[in-house]
């Protein structure tokens, strides 16, 4: 097969049994890989009402046909499961080097079912696959775990693992690969921890076949062009934290738990500041020319010590502006803690933001937490992050997430998220299409399923008024469909979502790799199919319009100042149009005509 490896690994953790099965070509043709193929497998096989942290949940690691094929940024994978944070389908994406490793080891996907009695890790070396005792690393952080496993397998093994947070089933625990890359969102780390699966380690020496290498060679020219353009320079030199400048300038940097859209200390936690104070060098994921990774270290003799990667933009919002921390070193330390303990920085930030607001309101006090928790207190935040990861004291409750604590302490309106998952670093009152995106994303507060930054803020391909509902339903639908396809291919969103002609480019790459000619419309239709399948998955669990919500702060409290002053998110208006254009009924359920048109049984 061109693109796909043709083999799916199945690991039954209850029985300790490993089987290999041939990839169904029609599954590949209709759903591609990544998010698409995984949701189809789950719809067909998962016991829908299962406890996400129970043995019946399935955990899927899945790359795509374009992984390791020389196309732009061809080194990503997704972790797909039923989320313990939201109860919906979720797909968490990560880069680094691990995705390329399990692709070249020969597998399109690894599907875990059941639950191991004792902690184990999976060691894959090409066609040799075995479960190993993880007692040597259970309890250890992700950096230590990687070193231990490498000493037990091979020093060049790529490792994806959980830290104490996943072991303790923190609802926003992450799976960390290659020491500092994260499949962070939706609590995928908790699912892994509940299965007593500590890690997956891989070495792969296989090859990925492609139909038309000539077209793929063009990617090297494209990469060169991107590299020389401002966007490329921005990524390679400044990383995603450059984006703090853009967000602040547009009054959409979520600040103080989304109360505001401008962070006074923005210039202290942006890309330039990282270069000046903590950057060791830029670092790329496997196969990527954008090079946006930040390899950093905290200065000798400073208050905080440590070494690692990041922060990247979302963390600058979540553990920076969102909780009023304007000290880069404290923020960097929090990022390292989250990487090492295996926590999603974004929901950590949404939870801390809710807690700081609850504390300010007097709904929660020192008595419950153990210490004061005021806005901007980085040391208190650091202390709480450790407690969340270890499940110690108040950390156990905080580890249930922002929605849980907000409801428990009598102010559900202070949780800034949707369907139980915290938002990303884009304030919808200043870019309302993003609000529609958040409300309709399969897993709730999520930006990667169709980030509207290019059209709404950068005016690419055309200018849009970020404050009005005009054209937003159409745009969000198009972004969601395109993104669903890209995330099925096993590549990074960035080059395709950020370039104006990105959809055409990925269609051309997909055709060149697989040998199956696909136009832009073809790939959008596949994306639409995937998105509707996710919607259908959620529908079977009882999700519909009532869950496509945003907190009142976004829909009813006017933005305090700046470009978006006075604005709120006109969600209902956009939602009505969105459902209609999607071919869903007024309850947000795909009609049978729509499902039929998309070939969804």
């Amino acid at each position: 097969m061109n693109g796909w490896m043709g083999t799916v690994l199945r690991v039954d953790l209850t029985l300790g049994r490993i089987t290999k099965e041939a990839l169904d070509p029609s599954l590949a043709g209709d759903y591609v890989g990544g998010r698409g193929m995984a949701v189809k497998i789950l719809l067909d096989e998962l016991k829908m009402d299962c406890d996400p942290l129970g043995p019946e949940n399935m955990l899927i690691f899945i790359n795509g046909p374009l992984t390791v094929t020389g196309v732009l940024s061809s080194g990503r994978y997704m972790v797909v499961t039923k989320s313990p944070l939201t109860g919906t389908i979720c797909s968490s994406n990560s880069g680094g080097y691990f995705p390329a490793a399990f692709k070249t080891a020969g597998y399109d996907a690894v599907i875990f079912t059941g639950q191991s009695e004792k902690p184990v890790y999976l060691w894959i070396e090409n066609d040799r696959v075995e479960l190993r005792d993880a007692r040597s690393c259970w309890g250890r952080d992700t950096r230590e775990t990687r070193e231990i496993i490498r000493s037990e397998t091979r020093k060049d093994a790529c490792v994806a693992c959980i830290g104490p947070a996943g072991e303790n089933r923190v609802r926003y625990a992450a799976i960390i690969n290659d020491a500092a890359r994260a499949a962070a969102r939706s609590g995928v780390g908790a699912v892994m921890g509940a299965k007593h699966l500590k890690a997956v380690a891989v070495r792969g020496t296989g090859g990925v076949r492609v139909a038309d290498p000539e077209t793929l060679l063009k990617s090297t020219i494209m990469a060169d062009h991107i590299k020389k353009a401002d966007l490329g320079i921005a990524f390679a030199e400044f990383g995603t934290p450059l984006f703090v400048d853009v967000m602040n300038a547009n009054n959409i940097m979520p600040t103080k738990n989304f109360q505001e859209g401008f962070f006074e200390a923005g210039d202290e936690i942006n890309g330039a500041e990282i270069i000046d104070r903590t950057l060791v060098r830029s670092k790329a994921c496997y196969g990527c020319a954008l090079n946006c990774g930040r390899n950093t270290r905290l200065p000798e003799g400073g208050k905080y010590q440590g070494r690692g990667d990041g922060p990247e933009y979302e963390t600058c919002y979540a553990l920076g502006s969102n909780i009023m921390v304007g000290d880069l070193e404290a923020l960097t330390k929090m990022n390292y803690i989250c990487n090492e303990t295996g926590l999603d920085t974004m929901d950590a930030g949404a939870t801390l933001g809710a807690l700081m607001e609850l504390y300010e309101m007097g709904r929660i006090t020192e008595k419950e937490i153990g210490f004061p928790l005021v806005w901007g207190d980085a040391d208190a935040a650091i202390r709480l992050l450790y407690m969340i990861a270890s499940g110690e004291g108040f950390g156990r409750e905080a580890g249930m997430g922002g929605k849980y604590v907000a409801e428990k302490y009598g102010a559900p309106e202070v949780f800034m998220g949707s369907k139980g998952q915290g938002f990303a670093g884009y304030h919808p009152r200043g870019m309302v299409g993003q609000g529609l995106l958040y409300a309709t994303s399969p897993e709730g507060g999520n930006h990667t399923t169709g980030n509207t930054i290019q059209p709404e803020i950068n005016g690419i391909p055309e200018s849009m008024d970020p404050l009005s509902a005009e054209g937003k339903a159409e745009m969000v639908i198009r972004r969601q469909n395109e993104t669903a396809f890209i995330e099925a291919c096993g590549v990074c969103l960035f080059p395709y979502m950020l370039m104006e002609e990105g959809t055409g480019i990925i269609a051309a790459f997909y055709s060149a790799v697989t040998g199956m000619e696909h136009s832009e419309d073809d790939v959008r239709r596949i994306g639409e199919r995937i998105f509707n399948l996710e919607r259908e998955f959620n529908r079977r669990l009882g999700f519909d319009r009532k869950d496509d919500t945003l907190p009142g702060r976004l829909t009813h409290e006017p933005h305090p100042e700046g470009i978006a002053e006075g604005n709120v998110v006109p969600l209902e208006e956009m939602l009505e149009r969105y459902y209609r254009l999607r071919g869903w009924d007024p309850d947000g359920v795909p009609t049978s005509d729509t499902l039929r048109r998309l070939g969804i049984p």
Partner: protein
Amino acid sequence: MIRVTVTLSGPLRNHYRSPGSSKGEETVLSPGACVADLLTHYGISRERAHMIIINRRKADIRMTLNSGDQVRILPLAAGG
């Protein structure tokens, strides 16, 4: 003469005129100068000045500058 404070974001910071200006610098222009004149003054092309913000509001290159204005110039950038 008018004095404005200019902050150049990301790669554009190479254009600061004073050494050590990392978060912004003051610059002097003729009265009646507009943003286009400021860009010329800094040697930044219109294409590279993707976004212009004056006193926290969106601006374009034709806008006249006044003493005390805080101007931010940003390149095309994205994140995630």
